[in-house]
């Protein structure tokens, strides 16, 4: 694609909705066709909206249907039969052999997602400020190196991390019998702490990238003035940078909260068999895997798990979108 004008010239005026052609003569059929063609894209969009909403809507409606109804017929039949119930929700939340026990799992999800959101923000904001405003040797390369890690697949670190959490890190000096303990065994495997520590490490490259993008655009004169007044970096960071960066911090917080709330892989790996610590994603995935007694609770369970992110999404969509947009679109 060369320049814009070039390309515009290259296109023959063969477009279906050519205004130039319209001028050549009023033609009733032509106009009707033209108007019809113009309206097609809008219909395509609304068709897309329907197709994109139907799966979630199906799940939602199914979650209010009795077990036998769910097994025998599709949700669309309930519009005429009208046999709705809230039983699935009460069953899936309460704990028991035949029920879901999702309430505890939701608390576990919070126990993972809240620290995994707050801690990376605190650490990344400090680093982002330093990368943007404290000159030091090798700054650019350390920054680029760190941020490039955001493409790193989680899988490459899971196995060593699990080993570290479950047994510490030891180095046996080659050629000798000597083993040096580099990191002691804190027996973290199976705990929520292992999960959010892992989340923190994986979140940092993106968090630093996003916050750096924002913090580096703050006006430098402000910091100069503060420095002349005798403020050190810490004061500047705490009194000026943090209050001014609230939009970026919020954007990242929401993004990270949704990400950790919806995570399955890291929790599954780090928690292993510690079922009492499972977050909601693992709970509903295991309900989906058993094809048995509790299958009628699955739609309610999936909806409960999705409820929190959906609420966040509906009320804080602007921040979430801002987090997604950071770095990809130059405004």
């Amino acid at each position, binding site marked *: *694609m060369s320049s*814009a*004008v070039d*390309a515009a010239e*290259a*296109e*023959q005026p*063969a477009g*279906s*909705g050519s205004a130039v*052609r319209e001028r050549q003569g009023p033609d009733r059929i032509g106009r009707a066709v033209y108007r019809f063609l113009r309206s097609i894209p*809008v219909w*395509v*969009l609304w068709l897309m*909206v329907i197709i*994109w909403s139907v*799966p979630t809507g199906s*799940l939602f409606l199914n979650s209010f249907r009795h077990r036998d109804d769910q097994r025998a017929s599709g949700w*669309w039949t309930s519009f005429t039969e009208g046999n709705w119930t809230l039983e699935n929700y009460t069953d899936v939340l309460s704990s028991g052999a035949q029920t879901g026990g999702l309430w505890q799992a939701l608390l576990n999800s*919070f*126990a993972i997602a809240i620290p995994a959101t707050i801690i990376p923000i*605190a650490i990344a904001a400090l*680093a982002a400020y330093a*990368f943007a405003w404290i*000159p*030091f040797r090798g700054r650019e390369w350390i920054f680029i190196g760190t941020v490039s890690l*955001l493409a*790193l*697949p989680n*899988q*490459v*670190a*899971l*196995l*060593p991390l*699990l080993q570290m959490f479950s047994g510490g890190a030891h180095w046996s*000096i080659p050629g000798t*019998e000597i083993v040096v*303990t580099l990191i002691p*065994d804190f027996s973290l495997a199976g705990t*929520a702490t292992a999960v959010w520590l892992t989340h923190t*490490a994986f979140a940092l490259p993106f968090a630093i990238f996003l916050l750096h993008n924002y913090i580096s655009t703050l006006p430098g004169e402000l910091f100069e003035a503060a420095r002349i007044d005798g403020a*050190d970096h*810490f004061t500047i960071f705490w009194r000026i940078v943090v209050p001014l960066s609230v939009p970026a911090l919020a954007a990242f917080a929401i993004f990270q909260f949704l990400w950790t709330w*919806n995570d*399955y*892989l890291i929790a599954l790996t780090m928690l292993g068999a510690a079922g009492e610590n499972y977050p909601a*994603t693992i709970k509903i*995935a295991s309900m989906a*895997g058993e094809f048995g007694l509790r299958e009628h609770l699955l*739609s309610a369970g*999936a909806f409960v*798990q999705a409820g929190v992110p*959906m609420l966040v999404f509906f009320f804080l969509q602007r921040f979430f*979108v801002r987090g997604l947009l950071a*770095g*990809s*679109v*130059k*405004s």
Partner: protein
Amino acid sequence: MTALWGAFAGVVIAVGASAAVFWVTHRLFGLVERRWAVVTATSGVLAGGAAGAVASGLRSGADSTPLLAGSQLVWIVGGAAVFGLAGAAVGLLRPPSAKRTSAMQSRLRALTFVGPAMLFVALGLIIPLLRTIYLSLFDKAGTGFRGLANYGDIFTNAQSLDLSGWAGIFGSQLFWGSVILFAFALAIALARGRRRGVAADFSASTVGIGIGGGLLLSFAVFANLRGTVMNNLWWVVAVTFLSTALGLLAAVIADRTKRESFAKSLIFLPMAISFVGAGIIWRFMYIARPPQKSQTGLLNAIWVWFGTLRPSTGGAWIAVAVLATATAMLTALCAFGVRRRQSALAIGSATAAIPLLWLIYRFIGPGVGGSILGPNGEPIAGTILFVQESPFNNVWLMVVLIWIQTGFAMVILSAAIKAVPSDLIEAARVDGADERQVFFGVTLPTIVPTITVVMTAMIVLVMKVFDIVRVMTNGNFGTQVIANEMWQRSFTEFNLGLGSALAVVLFLGVVPVMGLNIRRMQRGE
């Protein structure tokens, strides 16, 4: 409730500890000029403690000794005391020059800010990455060296790479469809080129047709060359292209529609749902029940309902009437295009009429949709086993991720479209360009960098697809992908070598993307 208290305590302890460490070090380095001795003494204590720990480890020589057991503690405290005193002595004897302290101070300041993040990145990402690469050269238990044998196992195993079906590519309809599309794009390009006096002129629309052909070709290839590795590539190609294309489509149309934000929210909503949840949602869509029973999955219900539209039941004639009307409209459009010499309209409507004519033939003849004729001529439901029928069950699984990711592409591309400078668009309009020309000539070239960003982000995400496959098939029915294979090998079989090698293969897959990102950042700064 204990979980929440745990979370609360975790936050308090972690934030408190890092704040305390940060504050103490920061204050300490702030006092470098005045209290040099404090700094040297503290570093002496730290170095001594570490040296003592190492020394005690050297002495005991066993990892069975718990850390901070009696004798070890003596070593650490002793080392810390000796080194601390030495450090204090050094600091009291010789304060460094003001210039050196200020240089050191600024470096240390930066370190206090960057340090915690670097610690996490090093311990949580870089060292594990290196260890995974190291482990991938070893056997199941992680002790016997195997060289590259694990990688050899991955790429010579028919489960992960099976190229024996290559001849089937040339027999598939997808392949011939792609040939037709390529020929079509080439013909248009040659015709346009002759008009402009060059060999071939590839406009945006011909490139678009070409990309469509490439996608069909990739489907033909991936449906015949099977295995875990090929499945993963199929995911990457199909999800990346289709999500981006659908997201672009939605963004472009929504940009000119009333109630734009409402439409966009609904397409974007799946982004908030977990992959696990999405897998469950789509499992309900894909349910197939025995033919005698009524279908509970929406897609099969529609499919079976279509099958009941047959000439014998009369339903087919309604369908044929609808289709015939649409065909007539398209024919009229085609004639209109020919009369007005609008070749794109004529070709487009003629092309669109072909599948309709084919559908009419199917409705009158063998029937459309999921039904077969029973012994008495009555239709019996024939369902599609979306999840079980290989190889296209892979595509039905990809639909789940496309459903999620389209919103992501749409939101970012929509913002990019709105960021196109309006004076550029105005200038093109003044020059007489219509909407189509403005889009292909101005908007699209301007947002190409953003499209690249979206696609690279998606490649990274799709490469490691795990949750959806695990929840929906767990890799059965020929849908295995590398990430799920890696998980099963590593965490159910505890085959450290093979699991690590699979992880490294995933890593190698994103290395080009990382390189691209690094180059982009270098250029940006």
